C-alpha cells in the first residue's frame, strides 16, 4: 500500500510539473494574440496584457480592409514552398537512391562528395556573391528556392531508408529487363512514399519558414514572402507608416494607425494558420529522424 501511495504521489507530481511547463510554453503565444485583439488606446494606457482590457478587432479590420500585401506574401510563400518542395524531393531522392546502391561503383565517392559539404562550406559571403554577381538572382524567387534545395542531411536520412529496401527488388526488375531509370521511377519511388511524405513535410516546413535568403536577396516589394514581411514589420513598424504604397493601399490616416496591435495582428495572420496545421503532422517530424540512421 505504502509503495502504491508514493507511486501515485510521484505520478501526480510529474503531471503537475508538466502541466506547469506546458502552460508556461503556450502562454507566450496567447500574449501576442491578446495584444492583437486589444484596443490601441488601452495598449498605451495599460500596456500589453494577457486579457484584453478593451476588446477590439480594429487591427484586423485595418489589415483585412486591403489585404493585398498579405495575400501577395502568402502567394509568394506558397509558390516557393510547393515548387521548392517538389524539386527538392525529386533531387534528394535521386541522389539518395544512387548513394544507397551498394553495388554502384561510385557510391562511396558520391557520398563523400555530398557529405563533405555538411562539414565544410564557403560561408555566407562567397554564396552571396555567387548568387548576386554571377547567377544574377537578386529579386528572383529562385534565390529563395535554390540555396536550400539539397540538404546533405536529408540525403543521408533518405539513404538510410532506401538501403533497407531489399536489393532483390532491383535485381529481379533488372532480370525482367527494366532499366535503372525505370526501376527508380516505377519501383523505388512508389516504395518509398512513406519516407518521401515525411521528408516532404520537413522540406516544406523549411521553405515555409525561410527568411534568411529573403533578407539577403529580395528587395522588390512584389516578391516579399511572408517571413520577410514579418521581418520588416518587426524591425520597424515604420515600414508600414513610411511605406507609402502600404499606407495608400490600406487607405488609412496614419496618425490613427493602430501601431502595436496591428504589428501583432500581422504576426497572427502570417504565423497563425501554419501553427494550427503543422502540429497535426507532429509525429512525422519525429519520424523524419528515425526513417534512417545517420550512419549508413
Amino acid at each position: 500500500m505504502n509503495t502504491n501511495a508514493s507511486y501515485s504521489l510521484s505520478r501526480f507530481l510529474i503531471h503537475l510539473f508538466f502541466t506547469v511547463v506546458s502552460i508556461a510554453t503556450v502562454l507566450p503565444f496567447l500574449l501576442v494574440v491578446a495584444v492583437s485583439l486589444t484596443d490601441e488606446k488601452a495598449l498605451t494606457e495599460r500596456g500589453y496584457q494577457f486579457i484584453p482590457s478593451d476588446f477590439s478587432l480594429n487591427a484586423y479590420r485595418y489589415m483585412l480592409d486591403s489585404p493585398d500585401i498579405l495575400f501577395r506574401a502568402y502567394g509568394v510563400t506558397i509558390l516557393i514552398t510547393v515548387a521548392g518542395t517538389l524539386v527538392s524531393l525529386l533531387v534528394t531522392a535521386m541522389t539518395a537512391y544512387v548513394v544507397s546502391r551498394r553495388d554502384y561503383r561510385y557510391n562511396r565517392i558520391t557520398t563523400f562528395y555530398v557529405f563533405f559539404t555538411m562539414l565544410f562550406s564557403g560561408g555566407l559571403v562567397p554564396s552571396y556573391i555567387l548568387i548576386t554577381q554571377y547567377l544574377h538572382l537578386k529579386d528572383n524567387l529562385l534565390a529563395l528556392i535554390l540555396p536550400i534545395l539539397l540538404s546533405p542531411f536529408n540525403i543521408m536520412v533518405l539513404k538510410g531508408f532506401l538501403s533497407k529496401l531489399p536489393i532483390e527488388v532491383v535485381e529481379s526488375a533488372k532480370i525482367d529487363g527494366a532499366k535503372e531509370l525505370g526501376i527508380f521511377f516505377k519501383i523505388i519511388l512508389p516504395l518509398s512514399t512513406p519516407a518521401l511524405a515525411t521528408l516532404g513535410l520537413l522540406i516544406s516546413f523549411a521553405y515555409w519558414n525561410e527568411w534568411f535568403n529573403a533578407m539577403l536577396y529580395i528587395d522588390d516589394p512584389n516578391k516579399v514572402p511572408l517571413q520577410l514581411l514579418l521581418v520588416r514589420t518587426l524591425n520597424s513598424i515604420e515600414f508600414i507608416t513610411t511605406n507609402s504604397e502600404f499606407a495608400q493601399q490600406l487607405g488609412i490616416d496614419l496618425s490613427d494607425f493602430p501601431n502595436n496591435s496591428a504589428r501583432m495582428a500581422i504576426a497572427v495572420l502570417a504565423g497563425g494558420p501554419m501553427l494550427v496545421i503543422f502540429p497535426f503532422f507532429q509525429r512525422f517530424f519525429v519520424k523524419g529522424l528515425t526513417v534512417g540512421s545517420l550512419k549508413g
Partner: protein
Amino acid sequence: MLDEPVTKTHSQVGGRREPAARTEKKKSALRRELSHLRKNRELFLLSLPGILYKLIFAYLPMVGLLIAFKNYRYDLGIFGSKWVGLDNFKFLFTTDTAWRITRNTVLYNVGYMLITTVAALLFAVLLNEIRAKWTRFYQTALFLPHFLSWVLVGYIAYAFLNHSDGFINRMLISLGMEPISWYQDSGPWPYILILVHLWKAIGFTTLIYFAGIMGISGDYYEAARIDGATKTQMALKITVPLLTPLIIIMLILSVGSMFRGDFGLHYFIPNNSGFLYASTDIIDTYVYRALREVGNVSMSAAVGFYQSVVGFVLVLLANGIVRRINPDHSMW
C-alpha cells in the same frame, strides 16, 4: 576481353617492354573505368543533378573563400580584385571584435547544448513514467514553439520586453519596481537567450530522447523490477547508459557546429539592437551586418573564412576523439 590481343601486339612491337606495358595497364584501367561508367550511366545520370547542384552551390563558394585575402570590389569580381594578404584579418584581430564574437558564439553554444540536453533527458525520463495519452498531450504543447520561425519568436519576445508597453515592464511597474530598458541593457541577455532557446528547442530534443527510450527493450526494466530496483535506479542505471550513444551523437553534432551560431535567435530576439552587441553578437550576426549593413565585403569574408576553417577543424577533432573512444559512435 577485347583488350588482350591488342596488348600483345603492342608489347611485341615495342622494343622497350616495360613502359609500354605500364601505359597499357593505365589505358586498360581507364577503359575499365569507362566501361563501368557506361554500365552504370543511368545511375550516374540520376546523381548528376545533385552533383552539379553541389558543385555550383557548395564547391564554387569554397573557391570564393579567396575573397578573404583580397580587397573585393564588385566591379572587378573575385579574380580581378587585388590581393591584400592578411590585411582583412589584421583589423579583426587587433580590435577585440574577434575575441568577443568567438567567445559569445562558443559559450552560447555550449550553454544551449548542456542545458537543453540535461532538461530534455529529464523530461524524456519523466514522460516515460506516465500514460501514453498524457505523454502525447504534453509533447504537443512542448513542441509548439518548434513550428515558429525565429521572426515570430521575435514578436513574442517584443511583446514581453518592449520598453513602454511590454508585459514585463508593466508588471514591474505595477509591483512598484523600476522598468528595465531590455533592448539597451546587455546584462540580462545571456539568460534571456538561453531561456528562449530552451523554450524553442526543448520539445524537439525531448522527442528525440523519448524516441530513444521507446527503443530500449522492456526486458531490462522487467529484470530490474524483479531485482527490486526503484524507478530512479532504473532511470540512472538503465535508461541513461543505454541512451549514451544517442547523447554522444547529439553532442558531436553540436561540437561540430560550435562555431556556427544561431543567427535567427541572436538577430531577432535582441531585435538587432546595437546596445546589446557585447552580450548578443555572434560570428553569424557579425558577418551578416558587415556584409549587408556596413557593406564591407572583405572584412565579412575574413570573418567567414575564420568561421569555416575553425568550424571544420572542430568537426574533425570531435569525430577523431569519438572514434578513439568508441569507433561505433563516430560519424565516419
